[in-house]
């Protein structure tokens, strides 16, 4: 069997989390991973490291990584790391990993995170468990990743027993964010110099428009529309606004161009963890329900009493969402105690 570039015995007892950065802001998924990483590291008595790549103004981000749970922050600064390109980031992360030899490397399953992890795993000749829905450590320092397959119908536990680092990606919203720490046992910053060549970076960013759209993963209420609402997202939007939430959608309306893709909930969309998900006119396919499985309360409205969505709902209403939703808006507006965003 082919081996990874460093072995389990050469690896250090460290869990490393890649810090995804958009401008001067750390992405929430990276902080969620530090929260989870802290828990895993404490279980086995290891250190938790944050890997920060960028250029200038890195100090505030270092502090943020510490208060999110890191014991060590590994910083690599280079002008070519100012914005993400897969070539520069893969090369820099590879150099840091080969020097620090962490046993575990975690990364958000975001578009850039996946690009990076996919390339890194090949470069390091190691295993990658993508899109984990849970992570734990078992004896011997082996990371166990739980993943869903076949649209969420099947759960698999996956390990990389011999190769290092053991790599895993996790989607935004899968792990809760823990409150920041005020005290910590250790806090080491390591500045690691990386060698990058401009000629390596062949991706040219022609235009960029990110960070302006909706992020429904953070919303306390998500009102989801399926095929059955016949494109009436205006109605759902009124309800969502009244409840301080956001509108989401299943795949058909997104594919049909009735709503932006970033609002798609489910396997090929986002996993959200709202207090309440109100699902209107969606049948409840696996591929969708995986995206609302973390909701505290699920309300389903569907005209078909046999729709599988009722199996995964706390409260079900058999009826036409286009009638029920306006009535609900009315009822909420007329209630003595107004419900508003909290």
């Amino acid at each position: 069997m082919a081996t990874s570039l460093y072995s389990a015995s050469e690896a250090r007892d460290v869990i490393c989390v890649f810090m995804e950065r958009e401008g001067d802001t750390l992405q929430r998924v990276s902080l969620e991973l530090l929260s989870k990483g802290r828990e895993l590291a404490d279980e086995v008595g290891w250190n938790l490291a944050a890997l920060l790549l960028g250029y200038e103004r890195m100090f505030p981000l270092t502090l943020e990584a510490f208060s999110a749970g890191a014991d060590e922050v590994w910083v690599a600064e280079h002008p070519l790391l100012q914005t993400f390109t897969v070539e520069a980031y893969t090369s820099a992360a590879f150099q840091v990993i080969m020097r620090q030899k962490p046993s575990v490397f975690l990364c958000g399953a975001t578009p850039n995170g996946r690009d990076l992890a996919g390339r890194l795993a090949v470069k390091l000749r190691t295993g990658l468990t993508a899109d984990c829905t849970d992570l734990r450590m078992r004896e011997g320092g082996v990371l166990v990743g739980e993943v869903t397959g076949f649209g969420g119908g099947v759960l698999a536990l996956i390990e990389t027993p011999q190769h290092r680092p053991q790599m895993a990606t996790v989607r935004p919203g899968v792990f809760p964010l823990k409150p920041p720490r005020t005290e910590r046992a250790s806090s080491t910053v390591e500045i690691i110099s990386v060698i990058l060549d401009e000629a390596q970076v062949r991706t040219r960013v022609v235009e960029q428009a990110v960070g302006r759209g909706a992020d429904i993963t953070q919303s306390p209420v998500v009102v989801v529309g399926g095929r059955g609402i016949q494109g009436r997202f205006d109605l759902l939007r009124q309800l969502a606004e009244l409840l301080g939430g956001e509108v989401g959608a299943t795949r058909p309306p997104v594919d049909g161009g009735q709503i932006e893709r970033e609002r798609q909930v489910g396997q090929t969309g986002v996993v959200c963890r709202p207090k309440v998900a109100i699902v209107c006119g969606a049948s409840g396919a696996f591929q969708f329900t995986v995206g609302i499985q973390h909701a505290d309360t699920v309300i389903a409205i569907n005209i078909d009493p046999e729709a599988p969505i009722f199996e995964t709902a706390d409260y079900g209403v058999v009826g036409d969402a286009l009638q029920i939703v306006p009535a609900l808006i009315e009822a909420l507006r007329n209630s003595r105690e107004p419900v508003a965003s909290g």
Partner: protein
Amino acid sequence: MAYVANELHLVVCVKVVPKPEEVRVDPQSRRLDRAGARSEINPPDLNAVEFALQIKDRFGGKVSILSMGPPFFEPYLRICLAMGADHVYLLSDRLFGGADTLATTYTLAKAIHRLEPVHLVFCGEESSDGATGQVPPGLAEWLGYQQITLVSDIEVNMSQGVVRGRRERQGGYEILEVPLPAVISVKTGCNEPRFWDYRLKPWAFAPERVTVWSASDMDVDPEFIGLAGSPTQVVGLEQAPSRERKRIMLSGSPEEVAQQLAARLREVLPLSG
């Protein structure tokens, strides 16, 4: 690497998967029971095939379909020929079995090297069985190609030897340009895959349209393929538990139901005056 515009060569990686809703885990053996499940072309891969065919329609060239799997994949892959692709390469060998992302991307990359010159390699965003989306970047790394993932629109400039893609990201997009050759992962649902042309069917089902390569036909290191080349191991498998929900059905007129729902919402959401 200089690429001349005389003939574009587009490779599309395609997988045949069991229909997700028909797959069960056998409670005794804890193995996937695919016997009862029908197969289909991984739906996101059809978006990739359509993407390549649209480029062929505009610029000419040829489209090769590349897949790794058992011989029963063949008739499914021929559907891509009847859609307009030119040839199918199926990597089929017991030694390829049990491959994870690392071994799969290694094997596919070896085949793509054999098919060179190649200008663009298209992949679906992810497979419906594994759904990890890690094949395209892994493939690009083995090949030493550039990559643009999650692409919904593409422009090929053959005279400059570059490809420009609109990459969809959470809350926005970006337009990236990379030199050829490149791996492109196609955003699921970004186009409407064409139906296969029944007139092409006899042509598509002619034996010579499909080339099957076994491990010995390819320059592969046995340590890097199949189970042997796969660092990850599946150590447990189970039917996903459906989270226990209350499953309370509310009934009445729309107004009555709305009142009940409003009351439930007030219980679980913060109130403010």
